[in-house]
């Protein structure tokens, strides 16, 4: 569904992604894991079009995205759930959800999708008139995921959805991601929470210093000695 080929990304003169290639297969959960500064978020931002790769290509459903601006990529069926939620904090929960469905089919089906989101997160329905900035961290993450779902994506990308959440909420968020995948949406997730991510990932890639160093099925990586010592502290 999504294919990254030999991608290089620079911040100014500094190269942060080196020759990265990987694939996201339909209906799977694909994970990118790595430490701080490994280039995980940069990779996602580049796929979303917020950064431009200097070399290599991004192909979504076999279409080259290099000439597609960021704001049109949502029409192609991909959406990014950005790091640290990035809600519109002075809008209400409901307005935030509406902002996820601005165009095309998503706009026509706004009502139905919203009902579905409220079913997935009953808490959001209770708080739909509340200003997003006043929600708790977990609720904000739910709203951010809900906003992403509003665009009826084929591919949903999560940038550190567990960031700053209590362990019980982290588990809840991962369950939701599992549910989203079970409903037929492809998931690409970037995480530092390696253990739980690998547990739900069908396929995982390990990024170190901007290079892909390892790949495999989530369960296999969980048992890999390098991953165990470097990321799981075992």
């Amino acid at each position, binding site marked *: 569904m999504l294919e990254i080929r030999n991608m290089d990304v620079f911040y100014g003169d500094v190269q942060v992604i080196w020759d990265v290639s990987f694939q996201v297969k339909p209906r799977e959960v694909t994970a990118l894991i790595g430490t701080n500064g490994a280039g995980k978020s940069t990779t996602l*931002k580049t796929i*979303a*079009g*917020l950064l431009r790769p200097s070399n290599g290509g991004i192909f979504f459903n076999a279409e080259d995205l290099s000439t597609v*601006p*960021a*704001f*049109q*990529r*949502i*029409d192609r069926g991909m*959406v*990014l759930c*950005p790091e640290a939620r*990035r*809600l*519109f*904090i*002075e*809008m209400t929960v409901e*307005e935030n959800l*509406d*902002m*996820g469905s*601005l*165009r095309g089919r998503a706009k026509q089906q706004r009502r139905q999708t919203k009902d579905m989101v409220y079913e997935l997160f009953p808490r959001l329905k209770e708080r739909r008139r509340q200003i997003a900035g006043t929600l708790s961290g977990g609720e904000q993450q739910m709203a951010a995921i809900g*906003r992403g779902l509003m*665009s009826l994506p084929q591919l949903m990308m999560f940038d550190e959805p567990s960031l700053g959440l209590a362990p019980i909420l982290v588990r809840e968020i991962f369950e939701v991601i599992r549910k989203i995948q079970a409903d037929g949406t492809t998931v690409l997730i970037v995480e530092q929470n390696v253990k739980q991510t690998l547990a739900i990932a069908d396929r995982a890639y390990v990024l170190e210093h901007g290079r892909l160093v390892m790949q495999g099925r989530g369960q296999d990586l969980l048992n890999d000695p390098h991953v165990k010592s470097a990321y799981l502290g075992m």
Partner: protein
Amino acid sequence: MMKNAFPYIGLGALLLFPLLGFSSYLMHIAILVIMWSVIGMAWNLLGGYCGQVSFGHAAFFGVGAYTAGMLYSKLGLSAWWGIPASIVVVTLVALVIGYICLRLRGPFFALATLSMGVILRITAENLVKITGGDIGIMIRERTWVEKIWYYYIILALAVMTFLVVKQVVGSKLGYYFVAIREDQDAAESLGIDTTYYKTVALCLSGVITGLAGAFYTNYMGYIDPKVVFALHDISIITIMVVMVGGAATFSGPVVGAVIMVLLAEMIRSIPKLGAAHHTFFGLLLIVIIIFLPNGIVGDFEKIRKLFRTRQEQP
């Protein structure tokens, strides 16, 4: 019920105000207040709602003023034609400025717009053959001597601006602006063409400011580059009007305009210290940012609480 009637009562009062026979000085102050409300509302659309802080609104004001002035000095037309003409001219200028500046974000955008105002001032000073340079443009035949007509014209412009801002902010466009202000990357990834909508905000804001500039030429009858492209007297005061009143509020720019114009008049009349009125504005800005970061309208609750607690402890 009362709340719905309030705007009409306010408008009625504004319509009747000049009939009460105030001195022409008071009328002048009233006209300035309304003109600054217009500029403040225009800036608020771009800076308050869309989050793009411009330090160069004098560019639009000056271009509007010079459009009116040059129609008179070069083509011999009435300077009033500057009002429709400035819509076209300022839109073009805003598109160019937007093309250059809107690729920058935050403080970088602010600095780029600041330079635009300065560049246009220097250009106007040096294109002596076209603009008249430092000598400026003098409108010899004034349309009216009495201020009342100018008052009604600027009031009409203010009402129109208010309605446009209200319409825009309540529409899809307004939500896009706020989304861009809150988080440009998130807005972009949700399918908002941020460059396009920022350009729309800039053009709307610039055109309204330009209209105020064209009015200024007609009202004052004299313009020169140092006045209409002024950084401190136009660009900065525009920001102060909105900051003092309250960014991203409907009535903030109006409240800000009243305070700033009256304050400017008061401080200027203090002997010796009057020349330093910019220093006072700087201090005022510091106080506002520390104590009322959302302006008088935005932090009205805070002010009310302050007075309430004082009353409770006599």
